[in-house]
């Protein structure tokens, strides 16, 4: 499960987040995002291999959605939350002037 590295790509992350809002076809995704259809397909393949999205056929179309079992999605989501949080923590701990140990008990 390499969900985390896969979401490091900003375009892939946008596609994933767009699908989190609801299932879409490749064409619909390409229409909504500033990404070509072949590029969308390529990113979807990577997302699918990472277990983040699944697809199904509806008539002639292929519909993509966030993996409903949610395992990889959950991990990726939490990883992103903690990544954001620790970056903000680092900034706070380093920006607040010299070491202040008074608060520590």
């Amino acid at each position, binding site marked *: 499960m390499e969900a985390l590295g896969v979401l490091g790509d900003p375009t892939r992350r946008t596609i994933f*987040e767009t699908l989190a*809002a609801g299932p879409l076809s490749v064409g619909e995704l390409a229409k909504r995002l500033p990404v070509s259809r072949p590029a969308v397909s390529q990113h979807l393949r990577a997302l699918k291999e990472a277990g983040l999205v699944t697809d199904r056929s509806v008539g002639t179309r292929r519909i993509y959605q966030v993996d409903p079992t*949610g395992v990889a*999605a*959950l991990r990726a989501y939490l990883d992103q939350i903690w990544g*954001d949080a*620790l970056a903000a923590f680092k900034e706070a701990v380093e920006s607040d002037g010299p070491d202040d140990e008074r608060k520590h008990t």
Partner: protein
Amino acid sequence: MNTQDLTIPAVNRTVTVNATVERAFSVFTGSFAAWWPDAHHINPNGYEAAFIEPRVGGRWYERAPDGTECDWGTVLAWEPPHRVVLTWQLNGEFEYDPDPDHASEVEIRFTSEGPSRTRVDLVHGKLERAVGAAALAAGIGGEGGWNGLLRRYAELIDGRDLTAIG
């Protein structure tokens, strides 16, 4: 899928900060609200601050501007300045789930790497409990569960629906 038998690899994150281990621990726990990204909260009434009560059994919770509070979890281990363990009790709908069987766990370790340098290792594990809870509550593939959470998250990122999230 039998969620009882499922084990999900923990989420691991590490950051190294230019601060003493004491200060790193103090800012992480005592000034939690000062750095926690306010986009990540659950109360529909909005977000003002979040807190970790400094003791085993203490609450980890957020407060809205109107004073209402939402729990996130509980302090399982409190070992300043080196280690703190919290339960994460938010379900797939991003609501507090009081059932301890559904709680995942966040362990944060602070290790001194020099006079003013600290490595912070964060492990968010026991994730299968949370997934089990989400799957149980929403049914796999339903509109609830992690899809619901991710949808809200996507809305938040897009700034499409901030009022609904808070």
